[in-house]
């Protein structure tokens, strides 16, 4: 655990050269530290960007101000209205690592301590500026490899997910309050909620969780990316397809069967998705030890794939190896890619047109349609919509648990045989899942809700 009563400093922008770089100082003495290293004569005004210069340490009595390090723009965010909830000064300089390091060093001699990874966010969390979802999202935002990942992480940072869960939770909470009132105030002569109505309400809440989860599957793909494995028997053009999709010549393409003996992987930004595509050794019975190892690895890769691209060669009749592969991957998420559309179909080749995508890896024909098919298979929609998505496995697991309990509550309420308190046991469990996502254990405001809604009490 870190100490939180001193001031910390760090470069806030990514390592390496950039147009600008930002040094962030946070803590009770942030302003004092900034005053010592900046040249401006008047104090920094809150939330106002001030153009000034940063100076190094005074080296001797003859240079009492120290050398100018860079021209900078400094902004002061007084507590609690800052990222961390403490006093924060952000200094934007030119994005040279040397300059930025020098500013950090100067801040340290002025009394700051070098921040440890995640320490700014930790302080924000401890000061109540970020809830758990948001704190996790900051990490995601920084680690984002594609713009869409960044967008989703940013949405969570803004609390969009928190707000969506809160809206669902409010509906659930109202249902719970009505059921609880039925139990605690049964002799009031009120009908707070009928079982059928309770079942409907539970189903409605479960439906909203499903929607969120549907986005969630997409969200996880966005956050963690997906693995697409190109599979097929030998020499059907897997590597050519891989190269077309990857956009470079990574895999060696020859006409000799069994050229690709190991896995070749490439990470690409696939219309916003971080995609790992894997080229595998062609599947065939072989005695070659190295090749057999390649085939085994291919099989293992297929097992972990989010999506299989199963390549067939229409210029040749389907072989037994083809049939075997088709059968063994029948229950997997796969797209059958019928390659070599530039060649005439062999007489012995028969494959239904509506299952699969016809392409030519050599000419690029049909590749656009294949890309769409991949996108659709991975995210459930062709274009990634611009809405809040849950992208964290922990959140998805919790929401799935919530949905299970809601469905169980709905079924119990529908039968009419299960008393309210058992329905409530499920509903409360669902509610705890929501609480766990946003990291907030809500106070017992249930009675508050009941009393403000109903006139109760004898």
């Amino acid at each position: 655990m870190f100490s939180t009563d001193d001031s910390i400093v760090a470069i806030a922008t990514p390592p390496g050269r950039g147009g600008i770089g930002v040094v962030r100082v946070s803590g009770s003495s942030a302003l004092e530290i900034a005053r010592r290293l900046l040249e401006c004569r008047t104090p920094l005004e809150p939330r106002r960007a001030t153009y000034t210069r940063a100076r190094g340490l005074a080296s001797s009595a003859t240079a009492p101000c120290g050398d100018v390090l860079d021209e900078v723009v400094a902004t002061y965010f007084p507590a609690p209205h800052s990222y961390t909830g403490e006093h924060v000064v952000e200094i934007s300089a030119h994005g040279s690592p040397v300059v930025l390091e020098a500013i950090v060093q100067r801040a340290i001699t002025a009394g700051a301590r070098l921040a440890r990874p995640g320490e700014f966010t930790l302080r924000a969390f401890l000061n109540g500026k970020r809830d758990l979802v948001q704190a996790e999202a900051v990490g995601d935002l920084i680690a984002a490899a594609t713009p869409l990942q960044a967008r989703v992480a940013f949405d969570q940072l803004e609390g969009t997910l928190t707000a969506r869960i809160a809206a669902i939770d409010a509906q659930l909470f109202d249902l719970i309050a009505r059921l609880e009132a039925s139990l605690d105030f049964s002799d009031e002569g009120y009908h707070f909620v009928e079982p059928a109505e309770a079942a409907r309400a539970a189903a409605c809440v479960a439906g909203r969780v499903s929607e969120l989860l549907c986005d969630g599957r997409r969200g996880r793909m966005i956050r963690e990316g997906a693995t697409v494995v190109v599979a097929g028997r030998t020499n059907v053009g897997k590597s050519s397809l891989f190269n077309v999709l990857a956009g470079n010549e990574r895999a060696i393409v020859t006409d000799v069967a069994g050229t690709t003996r190991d896995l070749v992987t490439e990470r690409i930004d696939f219309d916003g998705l971080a995609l790992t595509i894997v080229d595998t050794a062609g599947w065939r019975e072989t005695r070659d030890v190295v090749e057999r190892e390649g085939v085994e690895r291919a099989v293992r890769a297929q097992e972990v794939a989010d999506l299989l691209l199963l390549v067939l060669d229409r210029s040749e009749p389907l072989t037994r190896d083809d049939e075997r592969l088709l059968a063994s991957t029948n229950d997997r998420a796969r797209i059958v890619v019928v390659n070599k559309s530039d060649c005439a179909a062999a007489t012995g080749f028969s494959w239904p047109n509506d299952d699969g995508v016809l392409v030519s890896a050599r000419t690029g024909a049909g590749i656009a349609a294949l890309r769409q098919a991949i996108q659709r298979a991975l995210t459930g929609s062709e274009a990634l919509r611009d809405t809040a998505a849950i992208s964290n496995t922990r959140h998805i697991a919790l929401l799935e648990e919530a949905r299970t309990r809601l469905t169980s509550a709905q079924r119990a309420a529908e039968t009419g045989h299960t008393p309210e308190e058992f329905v409530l046991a499920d509903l409360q469990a669902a509610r705890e899942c929501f609480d766990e996502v946003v990291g907030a254990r809500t106070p017992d405001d249930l009675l508050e809700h009941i009393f403000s809604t109903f006139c109760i009490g004898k």
Partner: protein
Amino acid sequence: MRFDVIVIGAGHAGVEAAYAAARLGCSVGLCTMSRDTVAHMPCNPAVGGTAKGHLVREIDALGGLMGRAIDATGIQFKLLNRSRGPAVWSPRAQADKRLYAAWVRAALDREPNVTWHVGKAGRILVEHERVTGLAMEEGEAYRCGALVVTTGTFLNGLMHVGPEQRPAGRHGEPPSRELAESIKSCGFRAGRLKTGTPPRLHKDSIDFERAVAAGLFTEECGDASPIPFSFSTTRALCNQVRCWLLHTNDRVRDLVCANIGRSPLYNGRIQGIGPRYCPSLEDKIMRFPDRERHQIYLEPEGLDVDEIYVNGFSMSLPRDAQEQIVRALPGLEHASMMRPGYAVEYDFVQPTELRSSLETRRVDGLFFAGQINGTSGYEEAAAQGIVAGVNAARKTRGEPAMTLGRDQAYIGILVDDLVTRGCLEPYRMFTSRAEHRLLLRIDNADLRLTPVGRRMGLVDDARWERFEARRGRHARNMHALDATQVRSDRGQRLPVRTLLRQPDVRLERLLERGCVELDLEPATRALDVASLENDVKYAGYVKQEAAHAERLTRDERRRIPDGFPFARVPGLSREIVQRLSEVQPETLGQASRIPGMTPAAVAVLGVFLGRSLSP
């Protein structure tokens, strides 16, 4: 003269405290202003109700008085929520309030360890932050090892009837001022609450039969075969009175509105905060103007008592307005009011001043129980009384306190809520306060608590034998449900237990048809059958709940040492440090339930527990 334990007040909290301490072998001085108002019911002449009925069963399972007292003196019994599941079944009974008081007084008279002292408690004697005795207003002083204060509404009590204000603890009884001063001078944070009671009517002035015939009143009888409150009650209970249900009308509403300026609740004369779950008539009409009518019950206060209690009609309007409003009720045109309703304001001590033993943190050996802690209700008071009584006795012997978990008893929830959250309004128990409601049923109160009561020394041999017999029967019957096979509708042979899991199969029906033989005692039959059926039907839910409880209790086991320096934990905001220092939670679980605590703060606190903190 010296007592091990002195108890101030002989209301529902005081009598349980005195009885428990005496049963544990302590010499007890029980100090009351009058022996006529022992275990008095100044408001509703009834015991139990949702969640409150659970408390009474638990008090009884521990070995307390209340359950036996109401079984012996109840005049109408009803199980609330009977159409719902077993976890929310709650017994409620109308009491003959004179007989009830007499029964409790006699029970205490039989305890040789209890010495009565009729007089007014004055000053708490404290030396070196440790209680040493009690000085009476009349002058004499007693020394003691522990002191339990159960003053109800008497601390600086102020009664309101319209514009009239009178210092009083209850109708016709003087307040405690010197004691209030004495408590304040110890430095306790005090607050002010308000409660109220409805007018009482003369039963001869109401023609019940005619009102029922005219459809103005609905007659309410008790249950055909009542379920007793006490595990030791074996005789059949019977209903001896009826109650009547009626509704308010537009005239009542108009009269309240016309007189609202004369209500001390609405003209600013009452400052104390009243309970929202028991709103005054003024509140009902003013805060819920859309509601056309409100339920009112007429309840006799006893067999040979003239007073009729008007349940749901508490108010503090002037007497003349109350008379008009009562007579505006359908069927009560000629009713004569024996005494008006009133509101009473009184001092309470923020219960965050207490440990879970109900001992104050400021003064060693000083315990508070009942309304002084901000609660309302006889049952809530009695529940604290038994906890304070047991712990006062254990304190004098240097034994660790008895604390009950939130997953163990409603009593545990009550105490935990009080000491961690404090009170903003009078606290009443609800089943929705229990996060493990399915585990806390009236049918298993003895399984949960009688072993605890036995360990403490409250459960005598006879009762313990009965308990073990019941526990044995339950286990044998459970086995019988497994071992006996029946033919289902589809002709398969199934164990009864499997069949019973189906929602529409009821154990009573199977017993009637002779499908299974069980060992049942007539006296406890209804609940025993319910227990078995619940254990089978809802096993899945109960298991889930138990697992959940287990998860939550992990934080309960992480103890926070006395005097833990919250201010030195880095990262905690000043407000949170202040709340923690006020409440002084005893476990991490308690800390997490303090209002305003953030999960981050709990996590940080968890990290620093058991580490040495730099000064």
